[in-house]
C-alpha cells in the first residue's frame, strides 16, 4: 500500500524531531570538546565548530586522574555486569522453570529493591560495609550495583525464557540434556538478545551510578568517573572544555559496548525452530 505524501512528510518530520531530541545534546558535547575555549563560551553558540583543538583532552589526560577513574569505572561496571548475568540467568531460569511454593510471591518481592530511594539505604549500607571492611573498596560498588541491577535483570530474563517454545526444551529433555546442559546449550544461546540487553542495562547503571560511589569510596585512586569527574570540573568555576572532553570520553565505552553486543540484538533468533 502506498502512503500519501503528506503522511510521509509528517512521519519524516516526527522522526527528525525525535532524532534531534536524542542526538543534539550528544552533538553539543562531542563537538564542544574540540572547540577552542573562547568558542565554547561564545555569546552566540556555534553549531558547527569554527575551531579545532585537542587541548581539552590533553589537559584531561595529563593533568588529572581521569584515566584512573576510567579504569576504575570499567573495572566496576564490567564486573557488575558479569556478576549480574551469572546470578540473573540461573535465578530467572529457576523462576521460569521450577514450580515451588511461594514462587510468584518471591518473584514480586525481589522488586522491593526498587521501592526505596538509594539515599535511604545509603547510611545503613555504609554502616554494614564499614563492619565488613568493604568501605573504600571497588568491590563494595560492585555489590551495590549488582543488588540494584539484579531484580530487573531477573524479571527481564524470565520473560525471555518464557518466549522460547516449550517444545524446544522438552525435545532437549528427551535428548537427555540435564537441566544445566539444557540451560547452557539451548536456553542461553536462544535468549542471547535478552542476555545482551541485561548486560548492557547492568553495565550502564553501574557506569552512571553516583550516590554510592561518592560515599563508599574515600580515596581518590579508587573513584569512578561520575564522582572523580565531578571533582575535576572544579568547585568554584567550570572548565567547560574539560567537562565536555571528559563527558565525550565517558560516553565512549558505552558506545563501544553497544557496537560489540549490538549484533546480538537480532530478532527472530528462534525462527525455524517451530512451525
Amino acid at each position: 500500500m502506498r502512503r500519501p505524501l503528506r503522511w510521509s512528510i509528517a512521519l519524516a518530520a516526527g522522526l527528525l524531531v525525535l532524532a534531534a531530541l536524542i542526538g543534539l545534546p550528544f552533538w553539543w558535547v562531542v563537538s564542544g570538546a574540540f572547540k577552542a575555549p573562547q568558542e565554547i563560551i561564545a555569546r552566540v553558540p556555534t553549531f558547527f565548530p569554527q575551531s579545532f583543538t585537542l587541548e581539552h583532552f590533553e589537559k584531561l589526560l595529563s593533568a588529572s586522574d581521569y584515566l584512573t577513574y576510567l579504569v576504575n569505572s570499567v573495572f566496576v561496571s564490567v564486573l557488575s555486569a558479569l556478576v549480574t548475568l551469572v546470578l540473573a540467568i540461573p535465578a530467572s531460569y529457576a523462576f521460569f522453570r521450577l514450580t515451588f511454593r511461594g514462587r510468584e510471591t518471591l518473584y514480586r518481592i525481589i522488586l522491593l529493591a526498587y521501592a526505596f530511594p538509594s539515599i535511604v539505604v545509603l547510611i545503613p549500607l555504609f554502616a554494614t560495609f564499614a563492619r565488613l571492611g568493604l568501605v573504600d573498596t571497588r568491590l563494595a560498588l560492585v555489590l551495590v550495583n549488582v543488588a540494584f541491577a539484579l531484580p530487573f535483570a531477573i524479571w527481564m530474563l524470565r520473560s525471555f525464557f518464557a518466549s522460547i517454545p516449550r517444545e524446544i526444551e522438552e525435545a532437549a529433555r528427551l535428548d537427555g540434556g540435564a537441566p544445566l546442559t539444557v540451560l547452557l546449550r539451548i536456553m542461553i544461546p536462544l535468549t542471547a538478545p535478552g542476555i545482551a540487553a541485561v548486560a548492557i542495562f547492568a553495565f550502564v547503571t553501574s557506569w552512571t551510578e553516583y550516590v554510592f560511589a561518592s560515599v563508599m569510596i574515600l580515596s581518590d585512586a579508587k573513584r569512578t568517573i561520575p564522582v572523580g569527574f565531578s571533582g575535576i570540573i572544579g568547585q568554584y568555576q567550570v572548565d567547560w572544555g574539560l567537562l565536555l572532553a571528559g563527558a565525550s570520553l565517558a560516553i565512549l565505552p558505552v558506545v563501544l559496548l553497544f557496537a560489540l553486543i549490538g549484533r546480538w540484538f537480532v530478532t527472530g533468533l528462534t525462527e525455524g525452530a517451530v512451525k
Partner: protein
Amino acid sequence: MAVTQLQQVSKAFGPVKVIEPLDLTVERSEFLVVVGPSGCGKSTLLRMIAGLEEATSGTILIDGEDVTRKEPSERGVAMVFQTYALYPHMTVRDNMAFGLEMAGVKKPEREVLVGKAAATLQLEALLDRKPKQLSGGQRQRVAIGRAIVRDPKVFLFDEPLSNLDAELRAQMRLEIAKLHRELGVTMIYVTHDQVEAMTLATRIVVLRDGRIEQIGPPSELYANPDNTFVAGFIGSPRMNLLEGRIIGKDPTGRKALIDVPSLQLSGVPVPLRNPGADVQGAVTFGIRPEDLILADDPAKADFTMTCEIVEDLGSSVFLYNTTSRENAVVAELPRATNPGHGERVPYRIAPDAGFVFGTDGKRL
C-alpha cells in the same frame, strides 16, 4: 522392538480429570494411532509415555521395565513434535547429534549415525543448514531424523503433520509409513485427523474425554464400530446417523426391522451385532454414504431425497440431501452421476448395510 504397556494410567490436572484410568498394550513393531477430537487427552497420553507429563496413577512399562517415574531420556523413547521443536541455533547435523552427544556417543560414531539417518531421510545435502533455511517439510524430516538417530524403542509422534499444507502432508504421511516399514519399530502416533489414522495405523485407538471408545484395526473400526461416536468419527464424510425405531426382526432373527421416519422408510432390515438380544424401541440408524446407492429404476427405490448440495471430487460425488432442517444425509455416488440442485434422487440401501445403535449410543 518394544512392547509398551499402560496399566490403569490416569492423569488429572488439579481437579480436572484428563485421562480416566485406562489400560493399553502396544505390540512390537506396531503402528498405533491415537485419534480423537481436540481436548480428548490424546496428547496428554503421549506425553505421559514420553515422560514429559507425570501419570497421576498407574504404571507405564516399556519392554517390561517400569518407566513410570523415569526421566524422558531414560525411557528409550523419541518424540516428534507438532511444531518440530528443532534447536534453531544449531545446524541440522548438530540437531540430530545432540541426543547422541548427551548419551555419551563419541564424535566419530556420532558422525556415522547422523550420516546414516540423514541418508534414510535424504537430508545429506542439508546437514550444514540451520532450521530457518529449511522448508516446513524439510524441518519435519529433520525432526524425524533427530528421533531416528537415537535408535529408540518407541517412536512418539504428536500431530506431526498438522503444520504442513495438504500436499506435503500427504507426502510426509507416505514417508512415515515407509519409515515404519523400513525400521520396523513401534510407533505411537497422535492425530485428530482420521484420514491419517486410517492410512497409517495397524491399530487405532479412539479416545473421547480421556476414555478409550474402541481399539482395533482401521478396517474393523470402519466396518464394525462399537458406538455412535466411533461410527461418526471414523470415515469421511461421516456416517449418517438418523433417528429410528425397531418394529421387529426379520425371519432369520439376525436383522432388526427399522422404521426411519426422516427417510420415510419402513421395515429396513439392518444386521444386528447381537442377534440374540432383545431389542426394541427407539434406536439410532447409521448408514455410510457409500451404502446409499442410486436406484436406476425409480420404481425400485427404497426412498427419494432432494439433492441440496453437490460436492464433485472427480473420483466420486458427494450429495448432501436435506430431509429436515437439522439433518443432512450424505450419499456417495459414482462420478458419472451429477444431479442438479433441488432434484429428487431415488436411492436404494445396500444389502446388509447399516448399523443399529441404542439410545445410549452403544451398538446393538
